[in-house]
């Protein structure tokens, strides 16, 4: 299930370089413009890839973390760990 406002945040950030600059300079100011659910906002603030991944298109997820300034190596590590954790949860019913 997609989270609409999370998706909209990621979409807007990857669509506008100036907005991306502004976001890197002051995340709170940009996040305040979007009606994110509290748990979603917390996950964004914590760069919680595992929480965010099922709620947004994978391409947007990847674009977002490029804009947010996460290194490719770090993103790969986090998204793969998220997958492994999800698989482990699934295998335990």
């Amino acid at each position, binding site marked *: 299930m997609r989270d609409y406002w999370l998706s909209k945040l990621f979409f807007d950030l990857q669509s506008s370089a100036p907005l991306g600059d502004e976001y890197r300079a002051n995340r709170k100011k940009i996040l305040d413009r979007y009606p994110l659910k509290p748990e979603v906002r917390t996950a964004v603030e914590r760069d919680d890839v595992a929480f965010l991944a099922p709620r947004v*298109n994978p391409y947007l997820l990847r674009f977002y973390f490029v804009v947010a300034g996460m290194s490719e190596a770090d993103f790969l590590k986090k998204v793969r760990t998220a997958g492994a954790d999800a698989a482990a949860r699934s295998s335990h019913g």
Partner: protein
Amino acid sequence: MASLAGVFASSHAPLIIRGWKDVKSANQRELTSSLTELGRRIKAARPEVLIEISPDHWVNFFINNLPSICVGVGDEHEGPAEPWMKDFPFKKIAGHPKLANHIVQTALERDFEPSVSHHLTLDHGFCIPLWRGGLDPLPPIIPIIFNDLEPPYPSVRRCLQWGAMLAEAVRTYPADIRVAILATGGLSHSIGEPTMGEIDEPFDRECIRHFEKGEERPLIDFLNERLPTIGNGAAEIRNWVAAHGAAGGRGFELIGYCNCPEVYVGCGFASWDVAARA
């Protein structure tokens, strides 16, 4: 009447542009050779209009309005918006509204209901094969966006039928012009998923074998079974399926295949011999 002068397919991995220096030299040579040959074949077909089928990578559409298939009917399109595509030589790209509208009308008569856009931005999916294939000047482009990025996707069967309809639209267009089709995307890759970076070369090779054999049902069954099991980027093979349908399911020839982990994509390049079409 217009004629179908050629049908082609190409991968469009972004890292071919923005990560080129990190691509191993052997893979650089392989990719350059394939893209150059692709461009040579397109130029040899002498298209006066090029229909391109590619996904939209969140440039034109969002989940508030996400068409399955959209035909660009504008007289001009924007060049790529991605900052790393800034050196692409064309900021504006001519369209061909008359043929584009004929395609839409033909689609409606054949029970397809495509969306239309009078002004599209053509992202890297459209532009990398044109750029690295050395197409300069560009013929007018009719962009057709297939939703390969966000489920629900158009079915493989409908993509094949869309391609056949597209060929019919070209052949019934009442002007003596040469038209080519270029489908872009695929083959196997995974973006933003836990499997990101994985390339399934056995899948790609099997897929290529199905295109070479040309039999519709086994191709559809194979893709219906396997696409949900591999990386999300392989959804773009739907575009190749449409090209295959346009070529009448015959004459597929692999130009090159490069399993290139540096660009995260099993890169494929192909053409169909349209003279072989039944």
